[in-house]
């Protein structure tokens, strides 16, 4: 069984990103920056209706707009659109304005149909159905274990709560999209994607092309969070536009589009009952939940996940449980896998009710967790984190701080699988000592290229900047989609294998006993004219799965305005062997910020009268800003013996729950719905003025 070297110089170091200079100077070309000769803009016409029968779409006028080179339908014939923003047609032209003019000139004949966009309305049998052949509310999936009713009667303490989470949008900074050139020779797609392989597969399937004619490139990528696996409708449209216009087409979605049709995290409405015996051991758990994944889960993403269900009772083992989970369809865009699908939602409900139980039993919330969390790793993390955070000094009776601005603390835990396998990679070692490593993974911004360089540098005794790393091309040996926090655990062992073999082979061919480090150049010189090429692949024993983490939050809440300020987050996270500490910590920071967004700001808002998304922008879909960022303290548990695991997802899971628990601790009363807005805080404090009688009637 292979094992990671004992003496690690670069692995685990704070070495900077190898592509940092390219990114900072703008030399790095993202998919949205690629400009092949003669490229055209592509744009999509979307449904203005939440539900309608489309009887005719006339592209004649659009085709005649000056500068327009192609205008196509998403599909032929009559069709029913089921949400605002569904794709209808697309145009390609020489300027953005030409495309905009063309889109506005397309005549669409539509018969509007009744629709429903809010979960509670959709549940009602009398509401319009999204799909004619089945009701909006699915039959609940029921899971039962033990004797729940009896178990509750045996509990010393029982608490109940109702918790809601909103639909959250992925909103990666680089929007979805591709630049595609389709000629007789084949198709090249520069994609903003988490899976060059799945885009290749999707495009070949959709366009009836042989896979050897489809090449997908993603050299630099601006984030995906689970919503960018397949080519999407926009990818197939870009390809068809390119074919029709006989020119490359760049079709990147706008920020507006991004809010409608390319995925989201499903909402949840969770009724939870939890009981413990007098020793504080969890004994009975009951959950009834529903939530929406839009018109259905999955969409055109091959990322999987995205349904309205979530794990329950999440990280805890309760002997008696009853779980009923249903999904509600509404006339809105589909959910897709979103950074730890299901987990932040599950964590918020479960960790909230845990704190309710702790408060009612007068047990310290950290102790209650250590007592009930079956994971030894997390138990250790709670102890370590509590010490570091100053939990004992900071944790006070709920609502007990003096003055209008109240301080509170909270904590929560998370679990994630991670792991990963299957990556292949190759290297060319040149007689001049230069080296190139090629791997068909992609770097979402998480630092995959840096990971590869650090490992290679340690094994070959070189500096990271000596390693030329190429990823994001389907011509390189295959790796797999970057989802489920599996990339590092899948890629790192392959690079280990590759570089170990390369070193062996170089030593053999050069006749030198040790070709590492200072001997490297001399050994390479002995290769003669041709480079040495080597292949490697993922090996068992260098990676594993299962990452536990806990977070602590400290907040200030202004009880007179409802304003919540997160002051500090402490994160203790297990990630096995950390390969690139800098980019790993960057993942933790990003996960925590996304978690704070989920806790306090983010929420897709639908309008029930028009069926539109009301906040398809960053003005009213609010994201964490610079001034909202708290002090973040990161502790990465060092467990190199576990190998590489992957932590991109677990670090976003417990943040919202920890913040919500801190707010409840500050106030002495709980805000059960995310995001925790000033309106919600003032409402639970009983300060909000209720609706005037006459306006109530109208709504």
């Amino acid at each position: 069984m292979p094992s990671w070297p004992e003496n690690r110089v670069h692995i685990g170091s704070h070495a900077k990103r190898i592509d940092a200079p390219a990114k900072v100077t703008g030399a790095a070309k993202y998919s949205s920056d690629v400009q092949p000769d003669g490229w055209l803009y592509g744009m999509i016409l979307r449904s203005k209706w939440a539900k309608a029968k489309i009887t005719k779409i006339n592209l004649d006028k659009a085709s005649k707009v000056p500068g327009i080179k192609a205008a196509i339908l998403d599909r032929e014939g009559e069709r029913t659109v089921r949400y605002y923003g569904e794709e209808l047609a697309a145009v390609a032209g020489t300027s953005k304005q030409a495309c905009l003019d063309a889109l506005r000139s397309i005549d669409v004949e539509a018969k509007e149909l009744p629709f429903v966009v809010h979960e509670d309305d959709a549940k009602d049998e009398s509401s319009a159905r999204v799909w004619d052949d089945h009701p909006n509310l699915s039959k609940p999936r029921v899971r039962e274990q033990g004797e729940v009713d009896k178990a509750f009667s045996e509990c010393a303490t029982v608490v109940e709560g109702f918790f809601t989470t909103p639909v959250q949008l992925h909103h990666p900074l680089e929007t979805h999209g591709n630049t595609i050139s389709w000629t007789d020779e084949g198709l090249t797609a520069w994609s903003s994607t988490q899976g060059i392989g799945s885009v290749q597969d999707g495009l070949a399937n959709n366009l009836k092309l042989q896979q050897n004619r489809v090449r997908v490139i993603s050299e630099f990528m601006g984030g995906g969070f689970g919503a960018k696996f397949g080519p999407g409708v926009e990818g197939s449209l870009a390809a068809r536009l390119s074919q029709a216009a006989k020119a490359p087409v760049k079709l990147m979605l706008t920020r507006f589009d991004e809010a409608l049709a390319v995925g989201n995290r499903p909402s949840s409405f969770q009724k939870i009952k939890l009981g413990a015996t007098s020793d504080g051991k969890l004994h009975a758990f009951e959950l009834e939940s529903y939530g929406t994944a839009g018109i259905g889960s999955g969409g055109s993403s091959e990322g999987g996940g995205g349904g309205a269900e979530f794990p329950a009772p999440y990280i805890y083992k309760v002997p008696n449980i009853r779980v009923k989970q249903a999904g509600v369809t509404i006339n809105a865009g589909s959910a897709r896998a979103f950074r730890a699908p299901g987990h932040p939602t599950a964590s918020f409900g479960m960790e909230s009710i845990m704190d309710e139980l702790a408060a009612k039993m007068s047990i310290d919330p950290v102790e209650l967790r250590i007592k009930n969390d079956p994971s030894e790793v997390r138990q250790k993390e709670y102890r370590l984190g509590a010490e570091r955070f100053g939990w004992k000094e900071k944790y006070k009776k709920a609502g007990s701080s003096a003055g209008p601005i109240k301080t509170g603390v909270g904590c929560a835990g998370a679990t994630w699988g991670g792991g990963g396998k299957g990556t292949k990679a190759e290297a060319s070692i040149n007689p001049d000592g230069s080296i190139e490593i090629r791997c068909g993974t992609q770097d979402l911004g998480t630092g995959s290229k840096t990971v590869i360089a650090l490992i290679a540098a340690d094994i070959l005794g070189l500096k990271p900047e000596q390693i030329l790393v190429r990823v994001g091309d389907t011509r390189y040996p295959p790796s797999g989609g970057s989802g489920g926090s599996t990339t590092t655990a899948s890629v790192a062992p392959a690079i280990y294998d590759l570089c170990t073999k390369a070193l062996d082979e170089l030593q053999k061919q050069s006749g030198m006993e040790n070709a590492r480090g200072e001997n490297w150049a001399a050994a390479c010189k002995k290769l003669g004219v041709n480079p040495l090429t080597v292949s490697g692949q993922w090996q068992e024993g260098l990676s594993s799965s299962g990452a536990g983490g806990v977070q602590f939050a400290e907040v200030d809440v202004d009880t007179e305005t409802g304003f919540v300020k997160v002051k500090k987050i402490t994160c203790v996270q297990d990630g096995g062997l950390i390969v690139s500490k800098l980019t790993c910590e960057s993942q933790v920071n990003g996960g925590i910020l996304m978690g704070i967004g989920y806790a306090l700001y983010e929420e897709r808002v639908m309008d029930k009268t028009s069926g539109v998304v009301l906040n398809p922008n960053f003005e009213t879909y609010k994201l964490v800003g610079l001034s909202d960022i708290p002090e973040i303290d990161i502790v990465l548990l060092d467990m190199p013996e576990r190998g590489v695991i992957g932590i991109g997802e677990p670090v976003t899971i417990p943040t919202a729950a920890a913040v919500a628990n801190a707010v409840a601790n500050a106030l002495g009363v709980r805000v059960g719905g995310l995001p925790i807005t000033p309106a919600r805080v003032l409402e639970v404090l009983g300060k909000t003025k209720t609706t005037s009688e006459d306006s109530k009637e109208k709504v």
Partner: protein
Amino acid sequence: MKAFQYVTATSPASARELAGGDGRFLAGGMDLLSEMKEYITQPKTLVNIKSLPGLNQIESSPSTWSIGANVTIAEIEDHPELKKVFPGLQQAAAEVGSRQIRNLGTVGGNLAQHSRCWYYRHRDVLCLKKGGDMCYARHGDNRYHSLFTGNTCISPVVSNLAVALGALGANVIVQKAEKPQSMTIAELYAEAWHNPEAHNSLEPGDLILKVELPVRQQRSAYLQMSQKSDFDWALVSCAAAAKVDGNKLSQARIVLGVVSNVPYQVEAANKFLEGKELDDATIAKAADLLLEKAHVQPFNGYKIPIARTLIRRVLLQLKA
């Protein structure tokens, strides 16, 4: 956006003439260009007013400060003298958008900006304000909407500067027809109170030239509450100005923002404060008077406690 003609004006009179009935004035462009991109506004002509003489100056005399319409929000924010004389104005400027927006946005544009109502701003919703036949906010999600209105539209005016300038008793000098006219802040927005399609009282071609602030030896303050710490619209804002003698107020004026389609003032509240000492009961009574006629919508009742808090905190800042 729709194609338009672009012309540069050399004088207020020529600006009016060039704009005609369906032209718009371009200064910072922060609001106008985004409306044009969404096809909410489709002017035939954009009249560049950036080089109009004298509009980018801040001037003072013993009795009056004059701030040109093209002065940027950042220039107000950074002006050391203005900060001393009218702290409320400086605070209001510092809370506008982001620094990048403040670097470009102008006084005239801030005062004349249009509604941020998410129905009004939505490209596919034809609401009352855009000439449609219903106010969607009344029947929909009105969390960011008004507590006070004289018509069916409940979208609030969101100019920070208007709130502060209202409290400071400023006049806005507007080129109307042949000659400049002086309007109070209340007059500048009065039309929006009863006309759902109006954002303010300006008629086509009316051009804001400058703002004049009387020097009254007053203290002033402005506060706003947003969902985020920075770069976010106010949920509610409040400004107040008064002479403070010992603990006693005189000539007090309080204005609430983002709660009405006008910067909201209640004369009775101002009068009530005349000669009063600022204690809890006085402040509570002033807040009662200001909020007495509030008409709460299903999702905006939280604005009442925020408004009460801001009224109190702003008045206490005057005392400090």
